[in-house]
């Protein structure tokens, strides 16, 4: 940008940059700093003690379990959906893509509500489930379902445009060379989208571990049983255990920062093999 005719005066540039950075500092850097400061307000000892309680540990365990179930399911879905959408032509494709992205425009609370309406005691399938003594709502299955719903589009949304961009010729080439459909998928399609897949998994996982609204509706907040980390943060906070709340929050913030770092690294090194960054 050395062109004089289309450059703003130095003073304008400085002012604009300062305002933009000030805005970002206010809304991004300060909250992050607040989490860490509050978590360590009473020192390392208090921080570690707050994390080492049984209920906190069980909330961490539940969060990991929920992510370990919902992320792989959405990966399988994302791969099949993008394979079907990108490698074949059929009517109603754009409707299907809109439906896949639908969960993004539904409030997290409503995402939880729909499962309560379906599986809750007063819900459509409630009596059936109660008769078979199987709990979905206020239990782990409900938490997993709500998490799957809110993270549903992440992997597919990353892979569909990527696979569409890559076209079908490489798969056709593999077939003319004698590869079966499954081997074509494993040897050609999957390696071609691996970085895009990882990108989608990162975002999907961050949301799965951090989801609050949807999970809050279906969890029932039973300590040690149906409390995920974000829900546990809320409980500790409402009990005025600020160090505890911010200590757990700091772990989630760490997850966010690691996710951002990994995502940025992917964007720097594999920009050509992602689509989210190159609309």
């Amino acid at each position, binding site marked *: 940008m050395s062109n004089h005719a289309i450059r703003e005066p130095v003073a304008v540039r400085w002012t604009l940059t300062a305002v933009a950075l000030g805005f970002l500092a206010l809304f991004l850097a300060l909250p992050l700093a607040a989490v860490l400061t509050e978590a360590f307000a009473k020192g390392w000892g208090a921080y570690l003690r707050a994390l080492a309680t049984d209920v906190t540990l069980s909330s961490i365990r539940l969060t990991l379990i929920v992510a370990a179930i919902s992320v792989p399911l959405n990966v399988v879905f994302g791969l099949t959906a993008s394979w079907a959408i990108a490698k074949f032509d059929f009517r109603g494709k754009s409707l299907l893509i809109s439906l896949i992205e639908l969960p993004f425009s539904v409030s997290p609370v409503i995402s939880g509500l729909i499962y309560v309406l379906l599986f809750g005691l007063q819900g459509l399938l409630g009596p059936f489930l109660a008769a078979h003594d199987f709990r979905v709502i206020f239990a782990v299955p409900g938490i997993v379902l709500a998490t799957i719903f809110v993270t549903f589009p992440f992997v597919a949304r990353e892979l569909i445009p990527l696979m569409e961009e890559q076209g079908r*010729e*490489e798969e*056709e*080439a*593999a*077939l*003319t*060379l*004698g*590869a*079966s459909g499954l*081997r074509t998928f494993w*040897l*050609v399609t999957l*390696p*071609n989208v*691996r970085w895009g897949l990882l990108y989608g998994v990162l975002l999907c996982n961050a949301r799965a571990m951090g989801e609050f609204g949807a999970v809050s509706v279906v969890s029932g907040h039973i300590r040690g049983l149906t409390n995920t980390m974000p829900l546990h943060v809320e409980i500790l906070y409402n009990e005025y255990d600020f160090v505890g709340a911010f200590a757990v929050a700091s772990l989630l913030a760490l997850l966010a920062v690691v996710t951002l770092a990994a995502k940025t690294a992917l964007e720097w090194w594999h920009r050509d093999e992602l689509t989210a960054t190159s609309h």
Partner: protein
Amino acid sequence: MIEVEAVSKHFGDFAALDRVSLCIDQGKLVALLGPSGSGKTTLLRILAGLEQPDSGRVRLGGVDATGLGTRDRRVGFVFQHYALFRHMSVAENIAFGLKVRKGPQRPGNAEIEAKVHTLLNLVQLGGLAGRYPSQLSGGQRQRVALARALAVEPRLLLLDEPFGALDAQVRKDLRRWLRRLHDEMGLTGVFVTHDQEEALEVADEVVVMNKGRIEQIGTPSEIYDSPATPFVYRFLGNVNAVPCAVSGGSAQVGGLHIGGGSVDGVGTAFVRPHDVEILELSPDLPQAVIRLVTVMGPLVRAEAVLPDGTVLEAELTRDQKDKLDLRRGQEVSLFLRKAKIFVGTGI
């Protein structure tokens, strides 16, 4: 021997191929030549099993292959944009077709490696085995794609616009090289092109296609010297197409006798520019006025206007031009060495 019998293919209500029949002899290199939308790529993809025809049959080596999947056809297909596996090295790309074979058909690793080595040398890429497609030039990618297709020892090699994405010089070198390679290996080959020069230079036989139908099949010289249809005339090389009238067995354009016609009526006469001879003004021959003289390297292009206003383009050598001292506005006489008349309107 490849036989295509009355093959049709529609995409929606668009007829990409309309009852096309074709026979290709063993060991020949055949060009499918036509403008885009003429159905040539569709025909190639049907030969490969990448598309299924709506009707008609395809026989490979006397055996009906119509319903056969692309995996089981043993054809080598070189894609227009090469379709190299971007995450595999050159050697891995070439070895792919051998590695995915199952059971006893799969050669041992040492054998595969030896074969890849041989192929790399054949396509003159000996030192590049470890490179990735993104690190290669267009011409190199083209040759990797060819080596990969040849690795499975196909009985038929199919190439979709093999030189389309390359720049002019690389294109020229590669097509001569492909011709030599084909002669050495004795494969049957079919390639698609929209470039008439390419088809005429490389192929043993040219199939000219238009709007899903075959216009003419013949050797390059047959196609160029005796086009069967007005389309072939127009598509292959530069041509003067002038309206003419045939009566009493003689065709006239602006007082210029251009040949005989068996059927009387209105039609179009096709004359190649190099068949228009410019002579010094002579009372016995029809006259014309030179409107434009353009020197293009060793050749000279001139436009002559007949008394009725018809413009004919002529091609002559520098020598001829200098002898005539050809200038704009000069009055000359014309002689047509060869012309072909198609009677009918709308040609």
